[in-house]
């Protein structure tokens, strides 16, 4: 029975051309707009400095580096953290100061600093390299009258460069799935109630839970198709980069979509008409679309807002999506996001059951 109902629901979902158009059209427009215009944000030259020496010479060095305006220094990371941040594309450069700098400078021969760079950033690397080298030369000059005490070598690292479009693509997948699930489910429930289809089904021996399960399954299938299409548009039309295993994306989409479908179900139960259901669905979906980090990382939000936003269901979905797609981490490395998504499924599910009415 469930199977047949599921197939019937699938037919209905895919025959509803108008709704289907919106399910794909809306996120794809964003993919195209951002893909064509490439709003890549100009990144300041972020450089992490790892100071293994921690002596008076290295202190001088750091102070000197801080006076260079085109460099934004970060001295708080360990070497390991700094290397990972570079690999993930969070920072552009790492400068490693070896241990025993003061003794080395006092002794014979030059002490070598290491500049780690992302090999993909050729032209910028040359610029940064010359900035650092010029600085080191001036240090040498000041300290010992031109004798080379300090040297520098450049080491290339294969970093995952994450452009703005790559950052956006998981956002568009989450946004597309969320919008269609919330608004689609809300309008369908309101429509079924308005047209007394729910009541008519209640006049048969079929259990209502079976009816809704079949519907949810059909919507989940659609969300996977939707996610796959948005992903492929980004990958093949606009050359987006995905570093992780894209298969992780699908269980995530399903987990989050259960919550979105529940939210749509609740909106459809509260609203008195189909139009009201669509409006209410938008009231739920649009703030998440703007605040949960579809377009900008939530770090850029004011603290008070960020505290609230991190608990919205779209936020952990996007965090986990970007984690698996851009940082190439496996799904289980996101227990907080998964926990939040799971909690949302339970809470919204209980609420949906309690708030539901036939007429």
């Amino acid at each position, binding site marked *: *029975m469930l199977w*047949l*109902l599921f197939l*019937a629901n699938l*037919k*209905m979902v895919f*025959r*509803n051309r108008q709704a289907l158009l919106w399910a794909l059209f809306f996120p794809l427009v964003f993919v195209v707009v951002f893909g064509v215009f490439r709003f890549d944000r100009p990144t300041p030259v972020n450089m992490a400095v790892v100071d293994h020496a921690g002596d008076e010479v290295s202190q001088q060095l750091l102070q000197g580096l801080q006076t260079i305006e085109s460099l934004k220094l970060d001295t708080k990371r360990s070497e390991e953290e700094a290397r990972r941040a570079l690999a993930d594309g969070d920072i552009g450069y790492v400068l490693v100061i070896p241990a025993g700098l003061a003794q080395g400078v006092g002794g014979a021969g030059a002490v070598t600093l290491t500049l780690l760079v992302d090999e993909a950033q050729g032209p910028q690397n040359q610029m940064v390299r010359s900035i650092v080298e010029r600085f080191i030369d001036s240090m040498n000059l000041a300290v010992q009258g031109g004798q080379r005490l300090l040297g520098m070598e450049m080491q290339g690292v294969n970093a995952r460069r994450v452009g703005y479009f790559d950052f956006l693509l998981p956002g568009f997948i989450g946004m597309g799935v969320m919008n269609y699930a919330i608004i689609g489910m809300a309008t369908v429930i309101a429509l079924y109630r308005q*047209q*007394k*289809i729910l*009541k*008519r*089904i*209640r*006049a*048969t*021996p*079929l259990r209502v839970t079976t009816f809704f399960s079949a519907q949810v399954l059909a919507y989940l299938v659609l969300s996977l198709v939707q996610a796959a299409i948005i992903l492929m548009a980004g990958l093949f039309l606009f050359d987006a980069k995905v570093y992780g295993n894209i298969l992780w994306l699908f269980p995530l989409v399903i987990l989050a979509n259960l919550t979105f479908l529940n939210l749509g179900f609740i909106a459809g139960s509260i609203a008195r008409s189909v139009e009201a259901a669509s409006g209410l669905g938008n009231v739920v979906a649009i703030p998440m679309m703007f605040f949960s980090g579809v377009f900008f990382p939530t770090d850029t939000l004011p603290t008070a807002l960020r505290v609230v936003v991190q608990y919205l269901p779209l936020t952990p979905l996007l965090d986990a999506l970007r984690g698996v797609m851009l940082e190439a981490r496996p799904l289980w490395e996101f227990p907080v996001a998964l926990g939040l998504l799971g909690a949302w499924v339970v809470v919204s599910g209980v609420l949906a059951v309690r708030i539901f009415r036939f007429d």
Partner: protein
Amino acid sequence: MAKPVGDRWAQTSLEAAQPIILVEALTKRFGALAAVDGVSFEVRRGEVFGILGPNGAGKTTALECIEGLQRPTSGRTLVLGIDTAKEPERAKERIGVQLQASSYFEHLTLVEILELFGRMYLRRIAPKELLAKVGLSDKARSTVTKLSGGQKQRFSIAATLVNDPELVFLDEPTTGLDPQARRNLWELITALHREGRTVVLTTHYMEEAQELCQRVAIMDRGRIVALDTPTRLIHRLPVPYLVRLLTSTPLPPDQLERLEAVRSVQAGNDGYCLLASSDASKTLPALLMWLNGRGATVEHLEVITATLEDVFLALTGKQLRD
């Protein structure tokens, strides 16, 4: 397709002798409002039973309590011997329910919808046969949105028949339809009756109740104000007949008033005489004899029988439809 009535729904003789629906002191309250207020009646096996009343009389609420779709505040509803408040699921297997103005899935064809509804009863059905029965064979591949009002209602009856129910509930099946579509639906309901099904329908068209129903319950403000066959309900009126008469020469009203069973005489338009009669079978012979004796030529004579509309007016003091 039609099997002999009797073993079609495998009734025991005991079951067959009992009323198919038994309603006892059914009350349904919504806050302070009693939508159904202590209603009791029986429906007999094989009859077409009508619940007649104006909008808001409580017809739909009563029906939905009986069907097990709403929980009564108090009272008992037995359908096929099953208490529908306690075991609605068991009753649903055996009844067919058409809701007032309900629709079906927009994106499925008629055949697909019927198959789906059949599966809800765990049955494999022959959708084409059902569609043929309601005269929609040529619409098998259409969607509901492409049907006219009358076709929608007929399709909705086809959907109530997917489990071959012995008892069919139709809530205002012809409301809003044009006369032709209404006739078609009446034929369909008569066909259901002939197959041996029991039909319970609500309506606010008195001619519909009169045409289709063996018995009619008249409802007003949540109560049943009368229940009987349409004919007997009409005959209960003090003056169920009106004789309209036009003669070549004017007649003295005081003499007409003295004819048997005549209650009053009024002058109508264009020289017509209107005689209100309690029994047309007595008034007519007397009138004809009297006219014959006077040598008056009858130019027009007709007997208008009261309708359920008049019965409703007499019982409640208001019109059935406003």
